């Protein structure tokens, strides 16, 4: 983990409530797709954990949704402004278990961390399929970007206004070697049930510190309690325990 200042180089809307921010700085601790960074916003006490969508040299791409006052304030920030950022947080995805034909399943703002993952998997010569789920047509983002990486892409919308009608689990391909997924809890649970191969699931939780000190984001796993900010946010399918 590192604490350093990043400069905003871009902050643009992708949809009505989803923004892409690009920040430049010391990315030395950003090691793997699936990790996150934590931003300090002026006037807000706790940091905002945001998954890393891409890393290119000293530039990080962050895609975030305006869900409250903090992220709304963030969406108003301008290129040239700087941010206090903790980088290199979380375990990230392990690429070594992907097999030949990994499947990426993303829901809403769970889609972004899969982008860098897909890029790395394609680079390793894997045949990557991405199924991206959204509520409705107006919320779809990054379909073309995933395609440009060389992934086979299917988009599903819950209301059927674009792509396949239904959830990501309604648009699974016939054959795949492994699952990497990120999205809301009900989606992760549906994926856990609907897919046979093993996989890695990235969870979201309200965090206090984001680096393992406060025990605010602990969840029960088959391997004992885990801090989602530290031993997570990515858990292996076999260790996930659902609440009931």
């Amino acid at each position, binding site marked *: 983990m590192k604490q350093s200042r990043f400069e905003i180089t871009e902050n643009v809307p992708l949809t009505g409530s989803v923004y892409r921010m690009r920040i430049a700085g010391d990315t030395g601790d950003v090691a793997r797709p699936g990790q996150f960074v934590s931003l300090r916003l002026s006037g*807000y*006490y*706790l*940091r905002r954990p945001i998954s890393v969508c891409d890393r290119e040299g000293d530039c990080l791409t962050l895609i975030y949704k305006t869900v409250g006052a903090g992220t709304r304030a963030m969406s108003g920030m301008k290129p040239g402004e700087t941010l206090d950022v903790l980088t290199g947080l979380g375990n990230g995805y392990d690429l070594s278990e992907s097999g030949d034909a990994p499947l990426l399943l993303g829901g809403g703002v769970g889609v972004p961390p899969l982008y860098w993952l897909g890029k790395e998997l394609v680079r390793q010569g894997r045949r990557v399929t991405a199924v991206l789920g959204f509520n409705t047509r107006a919320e779809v983002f990054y379909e073309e970007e995933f395609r440009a990486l060389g992934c086979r892409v299917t988009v599903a919308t819950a209301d059927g206004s674009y792509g396949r009608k239904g959830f990501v689990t309604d648009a699974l391909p016939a054959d795949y070697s492994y699952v990497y997924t990120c999205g809301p809890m009900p989606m992760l649970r549906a994926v856990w049930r609907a897919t046979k191969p093993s996989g890695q699931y990235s969870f979201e939780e309200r965090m206090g*510190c984001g680096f393992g*000190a406060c025990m*605010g*984001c*602990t969840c029960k796993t088959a391997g004992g309690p885990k801090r989602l900010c530290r031993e997570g946010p990515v858990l292996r399918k076999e260790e996930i325990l659902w609440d009931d």
Partner: protein
Amino acid sequence: MGRLNVTLCGLPLDNPVIPASGTFGYGYEFAGLYDINVLGTFSFKGTTRQARFGNPTPRIAECTAGMINAVGLQNPGVEKVISEELPRLKACFHKPVMANVSGFSVEDYAYTCALLDKEPQVGWLEVNVSCPNVHGGGMSFGTEPRAAAEVTKAVKAVASKPVIVKLSPNVTDIVLIARACEDAGADGISLINTLLGMRIDLKTKRPVIANTMGGFSGPAIFPVALRMVYQVSKAVRIPVVGMGGVRSAEDVIEMMLAGASAVQIGAENLVNPFACRDIIAALPQVMDAYGINTLQDIIGGAH
């Protein structure tokens, strides 16, 4: 003695800055960030007789100038703390540590304290009778003078190390409780633990925290904490460790002027992991700016 040196219950501290329990784990998360030997000491994660998972999530809610937590004393239990956490800590921290203990019965407190008291790494026992996030224990011992005294007596009976009792602000008269602890043999008092608070999510119309309520901490509570440190330190003869919303060298000095012999820093560690290191580094300059020669001299200076 250097300018920053203070004494806490007879043990010397290089400086009065102490990360508060629950915001610093068992130390080694932070040891990867900076040399934690710059600290006066730190108070490790609240430890109980049995292992505890703690409360369901969400355990955290943001507030204006602060946060609410309802972790619920997640810890691996005293035996594992001794067999696993302390040996790991030994590799990165070479000063006496403050062992924070919580319990659900008087026997629990005594049992856990007796074990930790034997550990050479432990310099002080900080007895938490003020955790707002557990039922049938924790805070219930710290809201009633007789119960607080009973815990204090039981721990003192098994302890060779100084016993500091950590008090809750969620009481009508904190001075009464502090005096009861002093009369029961406490070597020091630390305060304040978090203030009971809550938030409601406007979208779900439900409490944000799964446990409904939690402990409010952060800069917003500093004036309340300062006032209680002032009141208690005037009323007791034993040393007081001040905490609550401290986030700068100036705040540390203010707490000491109110009567604190040492100062704990809690929530600030979570938003600025380097907070304690930075505060210690800033102290000499801030002391200069206010004409303060040594910190030991200013304790209770506002009385």
